[in-house]
């Protein structure tokens, strides 16, 4: 046979942004061998009539680090057409990590990324210490490609131990971090991630935030040796702070010849000019030779909460946060105590909006009812409180108590929901699509399906961009920025990572709760709509008709030379 796979009769959208065209794509040995009018035998043929064939989508901002240990498919990423993921963002990876720091890092990772402890503990066997060992631990089971970042907090922790949480590094420690970063890049890291905002499970700055400028600069010098990328989390809610961070990233980019990216960048009613201000600053710095790319998610910001564990919804309600941390019996007693209820009511009346979000608990709704609240499913807390003649806080508490705390409450469109405005931002060439947080916040909201949402809302809906541009922004643009080699285009010689989809129906599905974690519990996901087949390195890994395949052709993707 001339080819392993021949996909014919497709509308080929090759990722370049150029006009799509009718034709066939042939694959041999995991690579794209030919494109166009192809008359040849193949071991397998696919008739793609009516479908678009695009490069597999790349998700640059994920936290699948833990999930990849027990699920090499990173479900449901593949079924949304994502064939390469970048885990390890926001200064947090799972390696390099000494055994004595596993509990510390695990607690921080779970708190920031909102992962259930039981699933984390059940799913991670910690059979690694070095970054190379982590890569080997996940490599064999991969159905999806992985371009992992190494976290700055992990680098500091390895070199400095607990002092990483307390102080700046010495010159010798910085030199040791540089050598360690080189080792991680040699082992497959695509770049380094950091954070200027995250706090750990003890409400202390993550280790990366203790770094003085010369340390970050020294590490970026190493990134510059390899032309590897730096990802950072800035103070995304404040325009002055955000512009300062853009300037700092620009300095690093110019000094060391590296690409930098920050996430998230989102719009809100509380800060309606923020994105425009940030974009102007990015334009200015780009015009002066820097590469600073903001990542913007496509979906509105939805949150949820329950009273079983601290969640980001309570970030600026310290009393509610502390209450969720209590052992169950003590928590139940506290929630029934009149004096404590008054405190919680008062706090809900006067909290500061977290991160410019439009948080109004009256608009919370019963998202996952418990045994006693089934009849309240979908109803708003404000309406229920009015009917009961009680405070909103009391309505939440009493519904949760009746359900033995099993109720989940939802909040929708807290920000980034002015879709006509978002449409313009997403179409902006200097704004990258990402910041999705795939694999994180699993009991809070679904972080999957942003790619389908881009097509349904911003290509078909708001007509903000063409199909070709949307594909380009999800594929070639990301591969180019992140230095991901031989991916992001349908081009001879490139890896045969491809997605076949119906352009008229590709979308994200409704948010659902599934029980597929390695320990009892649920997570929110969205299934894909309109995705027909997904190929990784030339092999089918998912089809609409048959689901996930047995093959595991995913790889740790190499960086561009």
């Amino acid at each position, binding site marked *: 046979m001339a080819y392993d796979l021949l996909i014919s009769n497709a509308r080929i959208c090759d990722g370049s942004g150029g006009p799509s065209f009718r034709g066939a794509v042939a694959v041999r040995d995991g690579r794209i061998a030919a494109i166009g009018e192809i008359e040849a035998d193949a071991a397998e043929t696919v008739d793609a009539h009516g479908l678009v064939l695009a490069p597999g989508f790349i998700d640059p901002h994920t936290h699948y680090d833990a999930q990849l240990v027990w699920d090499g498919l990173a479900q449901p990423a593949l079924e949304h057409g994502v064939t390469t993921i970048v885990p390890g963002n926001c200064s947090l990876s799972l390696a390099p990590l000494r055994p004595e720091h596993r509990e510390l890092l695990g607690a921080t990772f779970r708190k920031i990324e909102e992962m259930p402890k039981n699933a984390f503990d059940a799913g991670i066997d910690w059979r690694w210490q070095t970054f190379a060992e982590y890569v080997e631990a996940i490599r064999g089971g991969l159905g999806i490609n992985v371009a992992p970042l190494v976290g700055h907090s992990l680098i500091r922790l390895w070199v400095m131990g607990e002092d990483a949480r307390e102080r700046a590094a010495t010159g010798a420690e910085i030199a040791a971090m540089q050598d360690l970063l080189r080792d991680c890049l040699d082992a497959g890291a695509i770049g380094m991630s950091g954070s*200027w905002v995250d706090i750990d499970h003890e*409400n202390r700055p993550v280790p990366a*935030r*203790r770094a*003085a400028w010369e340390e970050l600069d020294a590490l970026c010098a190493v990134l510059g040796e390899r032309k590897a990328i730096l990802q950072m989390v800035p103070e995304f809610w404040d325009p*002055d702070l955000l512009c*300062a961070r853009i300037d*700092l990233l620009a300095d690093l980019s*110019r000094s060391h010849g590296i690409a930098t990216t920050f996430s998230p960048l989102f719009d809100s009613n509380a800060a309606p000019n923020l994105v425009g201000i940030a974009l102007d600053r990015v334009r200015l710095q780009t015009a002066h030779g820097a590469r600073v790319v903001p990542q913007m998610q496509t979906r509105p910001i939805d949150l949820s909460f329950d009273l079983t564990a601290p969640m980001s919804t309570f970030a600026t309600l310290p009393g509610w946060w502390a209450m969720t941390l209590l052992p169950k019996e003590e928590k139940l007693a506290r929630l029934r105590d009149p004096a404590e209820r008054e405190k919680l009511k008062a706090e809900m009346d006067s909290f500061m909006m977290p991160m410019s979000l439009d948080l109004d608990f009256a608009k919370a709704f019963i998202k996952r009812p418990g045994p006693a609240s089934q009849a309240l499913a979908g109803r708003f807390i404000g309406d229920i409180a009015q009917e009961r003649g009680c405070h909103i806080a009391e309505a939440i508490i009493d519904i949760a108590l009746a359900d033995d705390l099993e109720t989940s409450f939802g909040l929708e469109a807290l920000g980034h929901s002015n879709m006509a405005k978002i449409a313009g931002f997403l179409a902006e060439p200097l704004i990258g699509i990402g910041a999705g947080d795939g694999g994180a916040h699993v009991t809070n909201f679904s972080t999957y399906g942003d790619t389908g949402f881009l097509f349904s809302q911003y290509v078909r809906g708001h007509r903000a961009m063409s199909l070709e541009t949307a594909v380009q922004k999800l594929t070639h643009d990301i591969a180019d920025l992140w230095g991901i080699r031989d991916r992001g285009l349908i081009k001879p010689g490139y890896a045969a990572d491809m997605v076949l989809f119906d352009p008229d129906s590709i979308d994200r599905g409704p948010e659902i709760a599934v029980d597929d974690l390695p320990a009892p519990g649920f997570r929110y996901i969205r299934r894909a709509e309109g995705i027909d087949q997904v190929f990784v390195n030339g092999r089918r890994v998912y089809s609409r008709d048959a689901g996930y395949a047995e093959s595991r052709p995913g790889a740790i993707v190499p960086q561009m030379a």
Partner: protein
Amino acid sequence: MSTTIDIPARRAFILPHPDDTWESIAARQLPDMPLDEAVNLLKSWNIFLVFRPGGGAFTPSDVMFVAPPPAA
């Protein structure tokens, strides 16, 4: 920090040294002002640091503004 291009910041800022305090920064950035007054002014420009949990502790990676907000 090394930089090859000097583009004026939207709002002037510094990154604290590892051993800096509010007083040392105020003395350095606002040398012509009585120290107490300078510290208060510096804090007023950086309320987000003052009200951070932990009582006004900042890290060497924090942005600290040394000028008032830009005019609207």
